[in-house]
């Protein structure tokens, strides 16, 4: 009953069922092996030797270059500063059809459910971290229908609890069987229509977005999905799709027409990466007009309790409209004197947006990013003439390119450079050295990654 013997007569004794998805696939060299082994086949052909015949050990350098390439693909400096949509209103559409019950890859038994749960939770956290002034809602589609689970809200906690409820539902108290949350066919048109009607009431300064996490190969729609795509395009809603299964024409047309992005995940990590890329603000379309946004900045109320729970000064009890809880301390809207326990929110009485200055400050790094650093050493096999070309497109307007090229030339012979951020000595062999074009200080690869992804400040330019 077992499978016929494979090429080199290795029997898979663990295979109990004919229909079981095979663990082993044919590797690049023709032997059976796991998929992850593919990246190590033929590693000997990548070794090089220098003039004396010794093998050059530049694995470390290659790893650093790879790390850096991932970073620079995300940030590019162009001549004009691209305007970004900072105040975003996004609907996350999840495809919970039968496709989500499939396993992730043919040699992993994990199903797409857990991958989706983890990736979407991380995405929600990252989204609210990068865009504190934005709001997010949740729509799911299964069995041919689409359902709005959560309206647009600025609260991270409610999104996370809803996601947990879907993917990992707590057992009900009574003995009723819980309805199966996954299954059926997804419907792109229905979910787009729901999102569209919900996004109609958004003011014009906000950037309207939809991100679909899709895991099927088809869509089951009541009408013509192309008219819906045209409707999205006319209302300037930016739709993007991140797919766990193969590429689909409908998704491609949708994302292309509405200026969104379409990504197909190769494996779990790439799905997460593709999804997290949407946490960064997108460039705005020309249709969006600028407008004022009346916002409010509220002082922290005097009667807030300190960390130990001991109230300072007076003790005043508040009753909050939304939760009807009694709590000491909170925020007061300056126009209608309504009480709120958390910021940022929208005042329910007078419709004023309530924020505090750290929320605005969190978005400043999107508007004033750090310029990418340039490599001091020219890549191997490049002559001096074309070496300067690697600076094209990486420097902001106004930097003296010739001076930088000269500086790099001087520094590349120097073996005593230390990283300005962490004081590590970066030897000339085998490691990348990076230069900030404004303050002319040298940094190592780890500091470069840290500065551009997390810190958003160059320590030398301050």
């Amino acid at each position, binding site marked *: 009953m077992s499978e016929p013997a494979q090429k080199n007569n290795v029997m898979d004794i663990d295979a109990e069922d004919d229909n079981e998805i095979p663990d082993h696939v044919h590797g690049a060299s023709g032997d059976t092996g796991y998929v992850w082994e593919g990246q190590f086949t033929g590693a000997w052909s990548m070794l090089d030797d220098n003039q004396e015949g010794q093998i050059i050990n530049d694995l470390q350098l290659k790893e650093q270059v790879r790390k850096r390439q991932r970073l620079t693909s995300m940030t590019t400096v162009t001549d004009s500063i691209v*305007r970004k949509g*900072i105040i975003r209103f996004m609907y996350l559409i999840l495809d919970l059809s039968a496709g989500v019950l499939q396993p992730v890859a043919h040699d992993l038994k994990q199903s797409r459910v857990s991958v989706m749960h983890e990736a979407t939770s991380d995405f929600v956290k990252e989204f609210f971290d990068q865009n504190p002034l934005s709001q997010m809602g949740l729509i799911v589609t299964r069995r041919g229908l689409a359902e709005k689970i959560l309206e647009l809200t600025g609260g991270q906690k409610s999104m996370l609890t809803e996601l947990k409820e879907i993917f990992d539902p707590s057992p009900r108290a009574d003995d009723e069987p819980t309805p199966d949350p996954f299954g059926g066919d997804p419907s792109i048109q229905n979910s787009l229509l729901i999102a569209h009607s919900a996004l109609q009431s958004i003011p014009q*300064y*906000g950037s309207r977005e939809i991100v679909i996490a899709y895991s099927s190969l088809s869509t089951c729609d009541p009408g013509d999905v192309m008219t819906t795509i045209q409707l999205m395009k006319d209302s300037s809603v930016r739709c993007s799709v991140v797919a766990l299964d193969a590429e689909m024409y409908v998704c491609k047309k949708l994302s292309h027409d509405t200026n969104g992005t379409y990504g197909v995940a190769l494996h779990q990590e790439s799905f997460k990466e593709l999804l997290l890329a949407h946490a960064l603000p997108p460039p705005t379309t020309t249709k969006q*007009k*600028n*407008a*004022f*946004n*009346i*916002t*409010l*900045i*509220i*002082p*922290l109320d*005097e009667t807030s309790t*300190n*960390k*130990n729970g001991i109230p*300072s*000064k007076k003790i005043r009890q508040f009753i909050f409209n939304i939760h009807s809880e009694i709590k000491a301390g909170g925020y007061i809207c*300056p*126009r209608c004197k309504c009480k709120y326990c958390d910021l940022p929110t929208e005042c329910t009485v007078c419709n*004023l947006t309530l924020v*505090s*200055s*750290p929320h*605005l*400050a*969190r978005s*400043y*790094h999107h*508007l*004033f990013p750090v310029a990418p650093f340039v490599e001091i050493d020219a890549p191997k096999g490049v002559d001096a003439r074309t070496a300067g070309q690697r600076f094209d497109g990486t420097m902001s307007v106004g930097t003296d390119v010739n001076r930088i090229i000269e500086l790099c030339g001087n520094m590349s012979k*120097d073996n*005593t*450079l*230390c*990283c*300005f*951020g*962490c*004081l*590590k*000595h970066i030897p000339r062999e085998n490691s990348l050295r990076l230069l900030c074009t404004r*303050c002319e200080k040298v940094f190592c690869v*780890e*500091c470069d990654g*840290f*500065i551009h992804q*997390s*810190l*958003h*400040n*160059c*320590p*030398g*330019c*301050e």
Partner: protein
Amino acid sequence: NPFDKKTRLAVESARENIQLLVVLLDTNPYIWGKRRSDQNQPSSYKQNLKTLINFSQFLNHVLLFTNAYLSSNSKNKIAFIAAHPKESKFLFPHTSTDRVQSENATTTTTGEQDLLRIVRSDKATEEFFLKEINFNTLRNTVIKQLEETFTETDDELVVKGSSLAGAFSRALCFINRLEREKPIGTTLNSRVLAFQVSPDISMQYISIMNAIFSAQKMNVTLDSCILSTEDSSFLQQASYITGGVYLKPLKQEGLIQYLLSVFIVDKSLRGLVQLPVQATIDFRAACFETKKQIDLGYVCSVCLSIFDQHKWSCSTCGVKFEVLQQVRTGAIQPKPKPGSQPTNNTQSK
């Protein structure tokens, strides 16, 4: 019950913890020099300034505090950064002019040479973690580097104020490196203690906020000790957001008492000690033009600049704003067209 579970957990987990404290010293020569000259003036003005200490007294307090900190636990580590007007500078561990000293260079003590070697190669950061820091070496290095810092000062740049944001960013890069290279199985608890005498510079607001959010993500607390006469709203926000302590001592000549009772407490033990709290933190932003603190304001949707009055175009990024609904309903007067008189009616357009 003094031996409840929380205390026991805090004490036990301290065994595998390494504490790292990065001290940021504000070395603005203009302000410290002015204090010294004011102190030397023989007038009644001097009485008012009696509580402001000068730099050598300040350094004495700080070094005494450092000795106590290093003695309290053999695993405590420390680093010093000077926030100078031109740029920030690492006082300890130190590399001379950012370049590796040649092997033949002579140094005053062998301890310094060891430390230089330690910092540079990543294999030997293990020594930084495993070896105890010698206070004498530290004191000599810090004093020597401070002398060099003050003699290098360029007079023109001094009045700009010190680069606290730069020093803080460098501290975070250093902590990031040590987190990556620490010995397996240890946890590194890091905090930053900043001393400030210069006033806040509004240009540095964005940089300081970026650094604060990054510190919050890395679980680094920022404590601040203000030795200037005014409060610093940037450091108030920084300490609040990262969960640190903000202190403005009333009597600066007793600074060592404040340091030994408040700033020497480890992160894990802070829940057990009653530390000074901030009564009100002023989170209100200031209008970008009038610099007044505002409650209710307008924000440009493109560049997030804050204004306290309705405007027709943003002064930071230059975009023109669209007509609001308020104009249509008459709540705000419409923009007067050139050549015609401004209308006063409240009718909708």
